[in-house]
């Protein structure tokens, strides 16, 4: 048999670990700069958290007392360094609104987004990559034209409109899928990891697993549409270039089946630009798709941060954005590592 197609790892473990370490060190200044920018920007938004929390009719004294309690009376640099010092100890602060530690409060939201984004990106990659490959393989065929027209519609479709149409058609007309939330309200999932697909399996509640998956479908498709279209178009153009390469002809001259010529020899060469796009899109989905989460009442990180902004809940905004940025950078790191695993000519340094 031929060895696994995609990963031919040739004992470079040490260099890879070295590379990851180096990249993680480079992360520190990036994230530090990030905290500063976010910290300054949210304080530039007009509005006082104490005022928002206590409401319009609150007395001046009450507001002043709350400001003092929240540390908002200090100059900005003192606040910033207090925040940084806490951050270095792993303390993300307390929500001004709920008085809960952010690190504890944020996880269910993050998990909800993670589950949805992962579901969406898996759909987008499987359908997008294959549609792109087949379009390139049978260039100018009816499949190619149809796929590329659909992809064009996909990238230009406003997500809120698509979401509403899905809810109307699949949710209300056909009643196939629920239109909001992550679970049946009358049959709630007892959270373990907060990734409900895993939780229901861990709890052995397979009836709930079906419900959870059903809840994922409509927001998942809405979220997957744009990445799917971008991935399909990228795969197609990258594959078209590679299919003309000499080594593709060599593979055919050996007597290899066209399917393997395409899926082994051509795809591995064409996948790198596609991987870049997949990485960026995954990062964006994990950043929380506020529109989708709002339309489908999905309790995700996007909505969590959005609500925190309305309440001027500084610690939540700061930590939320910091975590999203961190995830984004980590995904890019993973993509960069994958480059080297796929292409032996790319060196880690």
């Amino acid at each position, binding site marked *: *048999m*031929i*060895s696994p197609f995609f990963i*031919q790892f*040739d004992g470079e473990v040490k260099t890879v670990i070295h590379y990851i370490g180096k990249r993680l060190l480079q992360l520190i200044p990036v994230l530090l700069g990030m905290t500063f920018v976010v910290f300054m920007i949210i304080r530039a938004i007009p509005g006082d958290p104490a005022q928002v929390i206590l409401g319009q009719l609150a007395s001046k004294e009450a507001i002043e007392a709350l400001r003092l309690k929240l540390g908002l009376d200090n100059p900005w640099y003192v606040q910033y360094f207090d925040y940084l010092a806490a951050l270095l100890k792993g303390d993300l602060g307390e929500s001004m609104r709920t008085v809960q530690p952010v690190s504890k409060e944020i996880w269910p939201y993050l998990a909800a987004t993670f589950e949805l984004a992962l579901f969406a990106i898996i759909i987008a990659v499987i359908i997008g990559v294959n549609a792109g490959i087949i379009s390139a393989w049978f260039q100018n065929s009816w499949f190619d034209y149809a796929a590329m027209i659909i992809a064009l519609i996909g990238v230009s479709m406003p997500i809120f409109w698509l979401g509403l149409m899905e809810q109307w058609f699949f949710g209300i007309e056909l009643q196939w899928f629920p239109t909001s939330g992550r679970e049946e309200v009358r049959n709630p999932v007892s959270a373990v990891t907060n990734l409900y697909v895993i939780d229901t399996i861990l709890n052995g509640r397979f009836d709930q697993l079906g419900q959870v998956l059903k809840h994922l479908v409509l927001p998942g498709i809405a979220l997957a549409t744009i990445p799917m279209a971008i991935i399909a178009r990228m795969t197609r153009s990258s594959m078209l270039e590679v299919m003309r*390469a*000499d*080594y593709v*002809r*060599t*593979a*055919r*001259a*050996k*007597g*290899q*089946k*066209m399917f393997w010529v395409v899926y082994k*020899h051509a795809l*591995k*060469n064409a996948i790198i630009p596609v991987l870049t796009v997949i990485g960026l899109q995954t990062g964006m989905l994990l950043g929380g798709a506020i529109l989708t989460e709002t339309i489908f009442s999905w309790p995700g990180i996007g909505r969590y941060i959005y609500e925190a902004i309305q309440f001027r809940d500084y610690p939540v905004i700061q930590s939320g954005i910091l975590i999203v940025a961190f995830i984004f950078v980590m995904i890019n790191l993973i993509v960069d590592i994958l480059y080297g695993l*796929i*292409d*032996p*000519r790319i060196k880690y340094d």
Partner: protein
Amino acid sequence: MTKREIILEVKDLQTSFFTDDGVIPSVDYVDFHVKEGEILGIVGESGCGKSVTSLSIMGLVPSPPGKITNGQILFRGKDLTKFSEKEMRKVRGNDIAMIFQEPMTSLNPLFTIGNQLMEAITLHKKGWSRKQVKARAIEMLKLVGLPRAEELMKDYPHQLSGGMRQRVMIAMALVCDPKVLIADEPTTALDVTIQAQILKLMRELNERLHTAVILITHDLGVVAETCERVVVMYAGKVVEEGTVDTIFNNPQHPYTKGLIASVPDMRFKKQRLYSIPGNVPKPGTIPNGCRFAARCESVFGRCTVENPSLYETSDNHKTRCFLYDEKGVGVNDKTAATS
């Protein structure tokens, strides 16, 4: 010399490209054959249809727009043009193998040499164990003169030089003991010393393994050194065919004469290099009559009106030129008969 059987015969082959400007035949009624264990040279300028001929034999003409529109390709008496894609896959790499002009880009950069060599074996030797396959791959690398074959199996193409890569390509082509090896300009992209090594290797392997070789080139020096017989092509047609000796000592077609005259001679220093005036006609704009007429020094009235046939001027020597019409008997030629 013992009488050898014809292993591959190309008869009246026409391969056309269906473009927006109409149907353009790139190879136009080409006939030639290769005998077992023979080295046949196909010579001609770029664009004369050499590569399309070889791709036609392999069934690898890019389609669309290319298509074989006429003729037969007989391999051991069976017509390959009638084969299905599935049947052709069993021929490719197994009975007829091919190596290409660009060793730098002909190997997949993302797979190891071992992976690619072993792939070529497993495709055709179904019952072999992994151990056997690996042993065979290493054996082939040694056969083509590559040092440290075992380690080379784990190397990627970019770690090898152009000459080494072409050796790997040859090893890969010969790994299933094909009866015919088509080498499409195998040395063009290599520098001269490496060229000589590769040609020597191909001659040695031809003698050892008795693989018939079709050597496609534009380099007459390569032909003189390597081949037994030569087919000269011009604008999609065979214009002269014969043994190497007859072609070089007694070239008949004005085009062949011109080609030989334009080979630089090291003995004379200040000599101006001869070149055939004009250009190869673009496919699709080929005029009536002899295709070489516009560039020919011996052109006369008949050349621009009629199509010359391939005339047999002596044993093993055929020329497509009216100058030889009276001397020889025209061999069977469909184009001349139809137009």
